[in-house]
């Protein structure tokens, strides 16, 4: 018995040793080391003499990582993707191939996962590509990867990604905010979309959802907007870009790309042409801007836009509250602005608006911006299906002034309303009028009512 026990102890000790060695062996042979060996062999092939060849092959294996505190991530992708920044690896097999067309987005500064998705901290293929349980952000397929541009470039045009601008435009004009919150503004009938891009939804799912909401989430209250395939893709891009990440100051400064196109847009919006001229076209109360970037330095122009009084005491130019990249965009536009373009801008200038027009226009903007159009339609036509509500659909607002006083309508917007039922015993209709008093000011609501009443006038004229 005693001898047996001693033998057992000895055997178990050996087993423990073997287990430790096994664990050590397991830890010492990760797959990334194989990739690094293959890469070194690939590199060594190119070396002409034996000594450098041996030196290349003798490079010790190590984990490569890019620390990106500004993007709150650590990317170890380059541990295996070793040729990403090496142009001689243009035709190397994956995972060693050179990443062409990076432009300013070098991996040393941006890492990989901010665009590609995946799990930057991981060092084995499955986990790194994020196609594992409990990682919400798997690798994006090439069809959707450009959506990631919108994670940093949240405003303005992104060159090469019209889908993002278009998707954002659709979101703001089709009334999505009527049901969905985004960054704190919007209704609460549908889910909050503030972090939708971080929700582990497959892009294909989103796209199908936009084409036919009920096909992918049964019983969804979301109406079918009959989007085209392109529109569904645009919206999918926009959704994927909504990751709501905290970013360092450098990355958040890039929310807007200072492109000349955006500068032109600002030039029109801020009505610069009403004081300035370009090449003699425009007003002459302020200096002509043709060739202004040759006469002054970029810094001088920037300062002029921030604080005109400082540069020219007594300057009549107002202080426009423009962010850094907006100012850069304006200057970029001015560098290329021509008299012909100024002519074009002048020709499209709208007629002067009366204060009344402005109030109604503001009401229309609100009606669209806060998502009323989502259910009531861009032309107030209504008609979105709402089973078991009276009439079975969301009411048209074209004739609202016939049935209600203005005060009653204002009260309904302020307090919300559950639609009257078709069949009292039936189910609650999925859509209802939310209360807007916490989101909209009284003034905003009055303007929406003004807008609705302005439509009545037109409708009556039509009769």
């Amino acid at each position, binding site marked *: 018995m005693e001898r047996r026990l001693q033998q057992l*102890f000895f055997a178990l000790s050996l*087993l423990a040793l073997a287990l430790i060695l096994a*664990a*050590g062996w397991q830890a010492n042979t990760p797959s990334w080391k194989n990739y690094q060996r293959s890469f070194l062999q690939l590199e060594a092939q190119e070396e002409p003499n034996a000594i450098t060849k041996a030196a290349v092959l003798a490079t010790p294996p190590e984990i490569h990582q890019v620390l990106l505190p500004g993007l709150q991530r650590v990317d*170890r992708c380059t541990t295996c993707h070793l040729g990403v920044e090496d142009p001689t690896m243009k035709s190397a097999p994956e995972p060693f191939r050179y990443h062409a067309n990076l432009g300013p987005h070098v991996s040393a500064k941006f890492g990989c996962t901010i665009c590609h998705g995946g*799990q930057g901290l*991981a*060092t084995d293929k499955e986990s790194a590509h994020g196609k594992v349980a*409990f990682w919400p952000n798997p690798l994006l397929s090439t069809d959707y990867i450009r959506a990631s541009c919108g994670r940093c470039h949240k405003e303005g045009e992104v060159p090469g990604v019209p889908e993002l601008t278009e998707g954002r435009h659709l979101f703001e004009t089709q009334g999505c905010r009527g049901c969905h919150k985004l960054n704190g503004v919007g209704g609460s009938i549908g889910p909050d979309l503030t972090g939708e891009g971080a929700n582990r939804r497959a892009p294909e799912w989103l796209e199908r959802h936009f084409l036919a909401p009920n096909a992918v989430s049964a019983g969804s209250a979301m109406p079918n907007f009959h989007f085209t395939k392109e529109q569904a893709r645009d919206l999918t891009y926009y959704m994927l870009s909504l990751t709501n990440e905290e970013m360092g100051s450098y990355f958040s400064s890039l929310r807007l790309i200072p492109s000349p196109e955006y500068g032109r847009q600002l030039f029109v919006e801020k009505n610069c042409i009403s004081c300035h001229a370009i090449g003699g076209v425009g007003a002459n109360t302020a200096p002509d801007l043709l060739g202004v970037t040759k006469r002054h330095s970029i810094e001088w122009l920037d300062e002029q836009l921030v604080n005109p009084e400082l540069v020219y005491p007594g300057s009549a130019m107002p202080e426009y509250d423009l962010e850094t990249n907006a100012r850069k965009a304006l200057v970029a536009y001015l560098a290329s602005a021509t008299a012909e373009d100024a002519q074009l801008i002048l020709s499209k200038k709208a007629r002067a608006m009366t204060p009344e027009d402005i109030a109604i226009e503001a009401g229309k903007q609100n009606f669209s911006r806060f998502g009323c159009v989502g259910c009531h339609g861009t032309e107030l036509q209504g008609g979105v299906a709402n089973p078991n509500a009276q009439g079975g659909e969301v009411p048209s607002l074209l004739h609202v002034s016939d049935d209600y006083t203005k005060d009653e309508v204002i009260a309904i917007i302020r307090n919300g309303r559950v639609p009257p039922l078709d069949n009292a015993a039936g189910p609650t209709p999925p859509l209802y009028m939310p209360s807007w008093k916490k989101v909209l000011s009284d003034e905003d609501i009055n303007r929406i009512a003004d807008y609705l009443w302005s439509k009545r006038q037109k409708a009556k004229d039509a009769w």
Partner: protein
Amino acid sequence: MNLIREIWQSIVRRDPLSTDKGKSELVFLNVWLHIHPAKVKKENMKFRHTFYLGFITFFLFLILLTTGIALMVYYRPYPAQAYQDMKDLQFAVFMGTFLRNMHRWAAHGMVVCVLLHMCRVFYTGSYKKPRQFNWVIGVLLLLVTLSLSFTGYLLPWDQLAYWAITVGTNIGSYAPLIGGQLRELLLGGHSVGEGALIRFYVLHVAVLPAAMILLTIVHFWRVRKDGGLSRPVWKLKGKQEGLVTIGAPTQAAALQATAASKDKTYGLMEVVTGKPIFETVTLEEEEDTVFSYPYAFVREAVALMATVTTIMTMSLFLNAPLEELANPAKTPNPAKAPWYFLGLQELVSHSAFLGGVVAPALMVLMLLAIPYLDRNPSRRPGDRKLILWLFTIFVAANLVLIVIGTFFRGPGWALVPPWVHVAAGAE
């Protein structure tokens, strides 16, 4: 050569192990080993008397201490960093996964072994005189073990950790008057956050291990003073009368004087009046004893290695879970407490007051009071039928509730058998 021998002898200072004196000196000249007696009763060493559950629990604690200290080197108790450190252990630290696995499985193993140990002590009636208070210390050790496991549960800062602790602390907050404040004191806020993480960390790596070590010392010391490991005394034929436990008034038999043996030496610490409180040994019993070296030590060593290899094997093949980064805005459905609290959560789902207050309070109080409520002096199972049945029902009820909570509860805490797959709601 002489110098080497001199150095060696200055370290061990005992006779060779081939002699009886050397064997006893190995034990009582060594501060670590002298918690053992120099000689142990053969009966005490039988595996089937105790299943060595106390030893195994202690060895698991040693594994937890060593792996825990190694893990501390890689861990920063701040929300974002904590989760990243888990990922680093998994992907960048040499043998990091193995280390974390060992800590995780040893922790679950320790909870299981403490509970099994408690059952064994109950079924053998080993909490009876003179060991009543040691049972109380054992119950305290159980509570410290559960607290250690619970505080450690939060540290990875993933969804599993975050919501298990949220649910677990919510159960506690049902206590009347002080429940809410207690929860706030523990969490350092109204909900699980940065404050909770640092508090749980301090409890996990400093306060609770210290409590565990101090209580363990007392627990072992008392086992030693009360005559060593438990054994089925009711089976020892005709020897019971010879067993005298002094200090137990009901068994106040006279001390049996035995003639001093010429082969033995006695150390006399102090001459005092009154009776010693520890168990004395009769001559017949003396014949049934063997030296701790090697008989007891080899058994303990085998138990240690068996424990270590089991945990290592598990750690090689089973990975500790790590879910997504904790997200207070995204509640998993269902959110479950750690498994050992799922019985309580199950009760809470029927009645918050019952599961959150009455049941846990009653359980702890009852466990603490058992040795004082059970007035039956006999340890023979045949004499304790009623109480054994009651305890078995108590254990079985707990087990059933935990199994239901673990395997049979789906989204919305609805009853869903484990073989039915419920797709996580997409919308």
